[in-house]
């Protein structure tokens, strides 16, 4: 039997990798994927907890998270496309007209 803490450590690792990706990549698409990584980390956490607690809530929340992640991806990519039409860039660090 795999201890619960292993799963949680895995989840933390993936979460932090996602955080790092979010904080450091220039490419917007990869930044989006980093967010998906973080959400997946949460899902790993939720489903493993759900399994060990013998309770379905965690899986249900994970289910909703997947649904929301899909919605978020759709909107995020729409925003990128709208931006791309006005300013042909896919790099976060070139989108800094407003500052200060």
């Amino acid at each position, binding site marked *: 039997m795999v201890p619960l803490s292993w799963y949680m450590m895995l989840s933390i690792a993936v979460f932090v990798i996602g955080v790092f990706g979010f904080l450091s990549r220039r490419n917007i698409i990869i930044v989006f994927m980093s*967010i998906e990584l*973080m*959400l997946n980390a949460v899902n790993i*956490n939720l489903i493993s907890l759900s399994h060990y607690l013998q309770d379905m*809530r965690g899986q249900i929340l994970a289910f909703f998270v997947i649904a929301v992640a899909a919605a*978020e991806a759709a909107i995020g990519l729409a925003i990128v496309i709208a931006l791309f039409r006005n300013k042909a860039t896919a790099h976060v660090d070139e*989108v800094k007209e*407003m*500052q*200060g």
Partner: protein
Amino acid sequence: MNFQLPNLSPMVPELTMTALALIVLLIDLLIKKKEILALISMAGVAIVAVTLLGSSGVTFGNMFISDGYSSFFKLIFFINVILSVLISIKYIAIERVNYGEYYSLILFSTIGMMIMASAGDLIVLYLGLELMALSTYILAGFIRHDVKSNEAALKYFLLGAFSSAFLLYGISIVYGLTGTTDLKAIASFISEKGLANNFSLLLSVIFLTVAFGFKIAAAPFHMWAPDVYEGAPTSITAFMSVGPKAAGFAVLGRVFMVAFVSVKVDWVAILIPLSILTMAVGNIVALSQTNIKRMLAYSSIAHAGYALLGIITANNEGLASMMNYLMIYAFMNIGAFAVIIMLRSEGFKGDSIYDYEGLSKTHPWAAALMLIFMFSLTGIPPTAGFIGKLYIFISAINAGYTWLVVVAVIFSAISAYFYMRIVMYMYMREPKVTVTLSTSLPTDFALVITTVAVLVIGVFPSFLVGLARAAIRGF
């Protein structure tokens, strides 16, 4: 296997609001004049506000709680919607984004806020927050042909998604610790098992603080606010400086006061430095702004700092004064944005503070109204802003945070400099650019409502204060 439909009567406002949003979405396909949609939205929201009266109770097994607390916040959301729609009608035509989806998105966002205010369960809270946030991301980027608007949407989206990942992680830990996501069940589990000293619990509290701090724009999670406020359509800036912020406070108050009440000491200790930092950053950086939307963004950060004092008191009096403050803030802030929107006309941005030079000479009425809102935001009697601050400060003093109030008063005094700078520009400078006001009946109406509210609440505050106190009873 039999299924019983839960009692739907407490959620009549939400159901009506959803129906309204869908109707607006459908009618958009049929009509050409989009102003009618605005009218339907406002009338609909007014009807929803009426249904608020009879809706109290708990349903869906504690997931949905309609009590005085949530109803008061919903009232703020409704006022926010109506005023924002009023100031939008002319503005989105000027920006050439007069699409019908605008109104339905505003309504969907409001449904999200309502769900948040009524959430008795972390799952529902998360979904409400996402509904609100996703709609607002779209609205922030609504001027598709404007790079600034795209940029605002992008930044808001990226950081919003980032913060909601933190929220989810926090929720997953709470779930693992307590085996539930129901706020009341979490509270009783924590106190039964003596989890109050558990680090994991604190970790989740901190993660939730990050996420809610993002929504209310509390430093250091505030950084998105100035850029997004500046780039978003002005009417949406007004909308989201009030609505999502109030919703953030609603969940902050409920989650921390209900679920985490036994670790009160810890989250108060976390929130105190946050609120000081928020007031400091908001008020100090606002001093050197030259774009008025940006300045009001920093001002809105600062106001979140004051309102946080109400949560820090961790008692009903403090929550009541926080609610009271947010209501007042809704009026004065949207009022100020209404004036800003009037300055926007075809081919003229009107969002630099230099555009306000000599406004009292060319447009004395607009200048006088701006003066009232600036006074109110500063907190000068007899405007509503004074009342809001006074009650927040009194409740903080009663809770024993006199030193914190002293800090807040000092920052409040600093804030007078940048608010009064606008007043000085309007009244003591000569006009340099010709400003044409794009007035319209709805904007005027919004200005009348906000001005009257700011002055009436300033002179007769007891009704609102009494309402907030009554709303918090039985929380």
